């Protein structure tokens, strides 16, 4: 089993509940069978609207033809007997277990890079350089070293790390996210997780888009090995309340998120301090091993917004292709948490949007910079095993300094940890004994 989770706080083994799998029958037949066999009452799936039902109550998941029930020993016996009964649609009764991703070995890095004009040192930034998208990578991926500079490799893709994106949801039907979303939940009454705005799908793509997107040649996701936890805390029209955001944070922590990415916020006046509730939520998250990164805000030369202005939330500024602060990116005018902590690409960012809106598109904003940092944090968490406050410190420590004030960009550009690759990097040929060739009797060298 994988033990990537911080301090073993994720429980292991059986939960005490049973998972019952049915043959292809309709919902009524399946639920009737449960009632007849074991006197168990199950509602239909309320998973999208009521997270508690999926976690505690007896539920029947229609799409899967699976029931999850809390059964007494005699009920379990009756259910188990039904498995052997050919007349019963019950196929299997198995214990529910706590699950989390297996650790995966990061794929070997691609040898050929198409960015031969990128910087030649992986710990320096050339201020004169201007990044641009290529056919195969977005400029943001190159800037944060998700596409490594030459003479380096980026072996960390965030495998086994869970990134929660609290936003307008996600296009669950987008082929780029097939198998990547391990949990999703809407906190907007009457609206499913499905992203009707496009902001959430764009942000999730930047953080964790796939290594080889099926619909485009251009890779745009930083931590392509990580998994997504998607909380819809903003409506399809882009509005939300701090209450919905808090509920989303609590849920993301419960889901075991290692990084929580929040490309959202509200403006804050000069001299205004942070909200106690956001700070308390961020502290609870850090204590649980979840790092919250949030957008600094797009009000220009104005204070970092809320919740990014909480001392325990990592505030992210946006950079343009020349690694200059984007003119809209908010700055540290208020102390006590109101500082900018780190910066990342946030201008002309190419990422996924809902298929109904064209599948891919460009957006600009500190909202786009934030998931770049979430992705970098995931790779660092994977590489170092650090969580929470320690991960924050490592992220800031490894950021590349920029020739700009900390008020504008904090510690500088967030980057994926890379390994130096020697110029003479070659594949060693293993030695193995060859056939022993007997040269036969040797002619003595003639002596002249």
């Amino acid at each position: 089993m994988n033990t990537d989770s911080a301090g073993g706080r994720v429980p292991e083994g059986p939960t005490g509940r049973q998972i019952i799998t049915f043959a292809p029958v309709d919902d009524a037949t399946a639920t009737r069978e449960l009632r007849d066999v074991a006197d168990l009452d199950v509602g239909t799936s309320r998973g999208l609207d009521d997270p508690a039902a999926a976690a505690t109550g007896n539920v029947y998941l229609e799409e899967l033809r699976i029931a999850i029930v809390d059964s007494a020993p005699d009920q379990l016996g009756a259910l188990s007997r039904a498995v052997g009964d050919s007349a019963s649609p019950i196929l299997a009764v198995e214990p529910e277990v706590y699950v989390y991703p297996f650790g995966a070995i990061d794929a070997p890095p691609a040898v050929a890079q198409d960015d031969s004009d990128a910087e030649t040192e992986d710990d320096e930034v050339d201020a004169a350089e201007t990044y641009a998208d290529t056919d195969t990578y977005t400029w943001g991926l190159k800037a944060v070293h998700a596409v490594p500079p030459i003479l380096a490799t980026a072996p960390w893709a965030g495998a086994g790390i869970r990134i929660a994106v609290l936003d307008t949801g996600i296009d669950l039907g987008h082929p780029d996210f097939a198998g990547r979303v391990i949990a999703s939940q809407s906190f907007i009454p009457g609206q499913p997780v499905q992203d009707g705005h496009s902001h959430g799908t764009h942000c999730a793509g930047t953080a964790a888009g796939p290594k080889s997107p099926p619909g485009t040649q251009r890779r745009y996701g930083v931590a392509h090995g990580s998994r997504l936890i998607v909380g819809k805390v903003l409506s399809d029209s882009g509005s939300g309340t701090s209450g919905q955001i808090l509920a989303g944070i609590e849920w993301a922590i419960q889901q075991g998120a290692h990084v929580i990415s929040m490309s959202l916020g509200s403006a804050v006046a000069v001299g205004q301090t942070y909200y106690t509730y956001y700070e308390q939520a961020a502290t609870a998250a850090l204590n649980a091993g979840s790092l919250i990164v949030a957008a600094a805000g797009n009000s220009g030369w104005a204070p970092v917004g809320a919740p990014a202005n909480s001392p325990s939330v990592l505030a992210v500024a946006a950079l343009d292709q020349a690694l200059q602060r984007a003119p809209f990116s908010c700055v540290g005018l208020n102390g006590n948490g109101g500082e900018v902590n780190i910066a990342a690409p946030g201008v002309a960012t190419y990422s996924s949007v809902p298929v109904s809106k064209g599948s891919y598109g460009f957006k600009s904003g500190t909202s786009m910079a934030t998931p770049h940092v979430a992705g970098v944090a995931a790779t660092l968490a994977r590489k170092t095993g650090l969580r929470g406050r320690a991960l924050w410190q490592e992220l800031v420590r490894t950021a590349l300094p920029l020739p700009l004030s900390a008020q504008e960009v904090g510690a500088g550009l967030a980057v994926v940890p890379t390994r130096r690759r020697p110029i003479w990097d070659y594949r060693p040929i293993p030695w193995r004994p060859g056939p022993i060739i007997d040269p036969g009797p040797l002619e003595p060298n003639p002596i002249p």
Partner: protein
Amino acid sequence: MSEPDAPGGRRVHVTVTGRGVDDALADLRDAGLEVDEALRGLGIVTGRAAPDAVERMRGLPGVTVEPEDQVQLPPPDAPVQ
């Protein structure tokens, strides 16, 4: 923004420090908070409270009362998100 004249008062978030949410819940209800949700993992209670109830809650130990905040993203095609 939040509706100050809504029935039950305006929407507030109550941050509880130094004790558990469940411990504080009865006191908050007594003070006049209409509880929406108790976020036990965070130590925060969301709900509605009239101005006099807010004043009463502020007198409780380890309790911070703040108004709910609103977030609004620009439309999907706005130049800056």
